[in-house]
């Protein structure tokens, strides 16, 4: 109970300082639009088949990129006035702190994604993108959580000099590959208007397993990262 309330306070704090004004929503929206314009230069948007085939990949590329930007900042935000010290010294357990920050990042990322999704569908004339909206959102949520957990952890590691050498930040993004890969495959299928069948279930299992494993791993290790 106490744990949950603290987690919520931390998350609320992070979200509030991002959402001060409606800045972040606006920013997220234009970010999505800008990236979508960039893609239009890469692809020939009139070849609908190719666009459908790449759709999941492009979508998650945007998500991963936006994620990398937002997550990199997550703990760095605490540095200027040594705020992280105050949080760690307060009666908040490291895991509540981590979960709170992860929740805030997750929410921000999700907002960006939910803005991107329809814009992406609309501007590329992917008429079938919303036929399996429920499952698609499910995949987005699962994939985003995976990206968030790893990214938040990485963000915590980079603020700690000692661990930076030990834990090889260069591994962080590659660790996300299974998660991104699964999310991409599933999204491509769903955006193309098909249902998840036979072969694709394994991707879903991979995605869920990934989320569970890395969430537990992070919660177990975060105390070592934050308390020196």
């Amino acid at each position, binding site marked *: 109970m106490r744990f949950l309330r603290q987690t919520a*306070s931390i998350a609320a*704090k992070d979200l509030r*300082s991002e959402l001060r004004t409606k800045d972040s929503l606006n920013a997220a929206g234009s970010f999505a639009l800008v990236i979508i314009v960039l893609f239009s230069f890469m692809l020939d948007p009139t070849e609908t088949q190719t666009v459908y085939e790449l759709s999941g990949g492009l979508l998650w590329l945007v998500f991963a990129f936006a994620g990398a930007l937002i997550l990199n900042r997550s703990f760095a935000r605490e540095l200027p006035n*040594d705020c992280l010290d105050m949080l760690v*010294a*307060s*009666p908040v357990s490291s895991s509540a702190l981590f979960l709170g920050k992860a929740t805030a990042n997750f929410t921000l990322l999700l907002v960006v994604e939910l803005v991107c999704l329809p814009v992406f569908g609309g501007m590329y004339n992917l008429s079938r993108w919303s036929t399996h909206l429920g499952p698609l959102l499910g995949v987005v949520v699962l994939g985003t959580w995976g990206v968030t957990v790893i990214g938040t952890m990485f963000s915590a590691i980079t603020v700690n000099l000692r661990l930076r050498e030990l834990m090889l930040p260069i591994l962080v993004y590659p660790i996300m590959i299974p998660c991104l890969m699964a999310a991409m495959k599933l999204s491509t299928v769903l955006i193309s208007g098909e249902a998840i069948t036979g072969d694709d279930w394994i991707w879903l299992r991979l995605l869920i397993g990934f989320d569970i494993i890395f969430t537990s791993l992070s919660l177990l290790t975060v105390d070592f990262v934050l*308390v020196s």
Partner: protein
Amino acid sequence: MTPAVEVQKAWKYFGDYPALRSISLDVPAGTCLALLGRNGAGKTTLLRILSGLSNPSEGSVRILGHGSRDYQARARTGMIGHGIGIYDELSAAENLRLFARLFHVRDAEQTVQQWLTRVSLDRVQNSVVREFSRGMRQRLALARAFLHGPSLLLLDEPFTSLDDRAIALLQSLLADALKGGATVIMSTHQLREAMELATHVALLDRGKLAHSGERPVQMLADPTWLYRTYGDSQ
């Protein structure tokens, strides 16, 4: 009565470098300890261990009778570090509210208002901290540290860059806290300000505890007396 802080044979290594060397220190409840020492002596390192930001490499630390990372110890400790520890993007009131919630302060809103008034920031409570001058931020940091009525206060160079009025404020806050039975440990280089409150002093010298005990009377007239007497003469 258990001492507020019990440190036993604490060592802290950074790599192979021992920043603290076998520190043993008991701070009785209700006292005000001035932690003195030259730059690099290990004051900040010790205070970080006491505040649970860092674990000693060897030795044990008890805070208010609990382990240094225990909820009970943390909830009753207030801290001011090198950085002011408040968020630039949030308003003054939001900052205090956040910490009130994290520390499970009862009547959070009322306590926050009370403290904002106390540090005379009530009129600007909804302004973003970024717009504040350094003095205003320092006052807010004081309010943040005292908000939950801590039994143990850990202050790392709290007088830094405060003007005369703010120093008077801090001293009165500390005096009130001491009167209420709290224990205060502060590191400082501004001996004169510290000596007005300190009942005990401890002198660190390159990671070792060179002296600790009640404040010698000589220090009131001549604050550097301790350095000259126990400090390394180099």
